[in-house]
């Protein structure tokens, strides 16, 4: 049975322990390799050494959390939202320990309405997403999850379609593509969006076959956006898409196989009140699949 170490204040300790103990072995023995669940104040007071297996529960603001993620290289930050944070810990721990990262089955299970849309070029992104979204009934939600999903899809798909190929172009000494010019992917390159919904919430996943969105790139981008709140004058984007996506998600999850594959998943909890959607502390998860020698060869 997988061992979990809890380093939490007494009130949270009992709550988390009671919730997780049917699924994991809760231990007091400390070891560097174990999965640790802790509180943000233990991190700030340097009472915990953060590793990619550390889950940090935080009640800080989104901007403070992003700065914290950057400073301590946190891979899993859970917003302390009373109704959902325990489920989130369980879902993401199961995912991390299973080492099966791709897709959103860990969050929604198998029973969900799902639509997959593949893109080989940047034309008509918005029209295709709008058409696919029309297949979903958002009963039980605030009135506009569609608006947010369309915006996040637009930002993430544009990032995937331009930034991955642009890196290859730069490596070949070619100029990067401008967002105003259409891009057409070559050969096995792929960008795919998946929409999914069930009684837990709605999710958007955007996957590409480039694997360029590292923790460092992502968090540096978010820190700049939170601090400056201004667009950049770059040919292949304004540098704000991930920031807007972060702020419109309830959970932002990134799966990476460096050089091979990236997946960004945005989850919006099922929620009738817009106030609850927006007042939630956002959670962040970053999963990195180790590239084996065999894959390299």
């Amino acid at each position, binding site marked *: 049975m997988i061992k979990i170490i809890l380093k939490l204040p007494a009130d949270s300790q009992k709550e988390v322990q009671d919730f997780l103990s049917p699924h994991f072995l809760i231990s007091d023995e400390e070891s560097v390799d174990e999965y640790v669940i802790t509180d943000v104040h233990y991190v700030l007071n340097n009472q915990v050494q953060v590793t990619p297996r550390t889950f940090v529960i935080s009640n800080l603001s989104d901007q403070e959390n992003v700065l914290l993620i950057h400073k301590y290289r946190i891979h899993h930050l859970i917003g302390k939202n009373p109704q959902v944070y325990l489920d989130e810990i369980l879902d993401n721990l199961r995912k991390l320990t299973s080492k099966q990262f791709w897709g959103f089955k860990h969050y929604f299970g198998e029973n969900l309405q799902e639509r997959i849309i593949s893109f080989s070029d940047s034309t*008509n*992104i*918005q*029209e295709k997403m709008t058409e696919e979204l029309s297949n979903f009934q958002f009963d039980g939600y*605030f*009135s*506009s999850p569609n*608006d*947010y999903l*369309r*915006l996040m899809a*637009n*930002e993430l798909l*544009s990032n995937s379609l331009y930034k991955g190929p642009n890196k290859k172009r730069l490596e070949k000494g070619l100029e990067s593509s401008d*967002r*105003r010019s259409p891009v057409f992917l070559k050969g096995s390159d792929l960008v795919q969006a998946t929409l999914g919904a069930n009684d837990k919430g709605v999710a958007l996943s955007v996957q590409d076959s480039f694997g360029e969105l590292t923790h460092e790139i992502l968090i540096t981008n978010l820190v700049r956006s939170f601090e*400056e*709140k*201004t*667009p*950049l*004058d770059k040919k292949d*984007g*304004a*540098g*704000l*898409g991930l*920031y*807007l996506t972060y*702020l*419109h998600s309830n959970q932002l999850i990134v799966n990476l196989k460096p050089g091979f594959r990236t997946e960004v998943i945005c989850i919006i909890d099922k929620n*009738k*009140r*817009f*106030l609850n959607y*927006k*007042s939630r502390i956002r959670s962040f998860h970053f999963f990195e699949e180790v590239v084996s020698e065999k894959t390299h060869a």
Partner: protein
Amino acid sequence: MKRLTLNKKLNDGVLHVQLIGNIDEDTDLTEILETKASEVIFDFDQVELINSCGIREWIKFLDNLSAESVQYENCPQIIIEQINMVHGFIRPGSKLNSFYAPYYCEDCDKERKTRITSNDVKSKKAPKMNCPDCGSEMEFDALEATYFNFLGK
């Protein structure tokens, strides 16, 4: 993406511009710059989406706009959120006259996007609104300090 359409009417130096569609990287607002009106009023009621590149294009456009007075009307909720998240969408001295905000009617169990004016908002407190169906007083359904942040810009 659906290109932005501009419906323009110029009366006594005041240019009314109705924006229809998406504001994005392909948005071209040159024809407004060429009008040389002293006052421009933008109606955002039919703007469906503004992405990060669209925000950038809008800010660049404002830098080149010579009109002395710039006003915004009927801003949808998602535009208000983008304005609050990114600096520069409203240039100093311009006025956002009216916009949509989320309200919730507990009796009908429904959210209503309700048009309010900036003058209705005092000290970043949402004005009282009644449900158009049942007449009950509705609750403002966002964080007031965050949602009305643009009014202090």
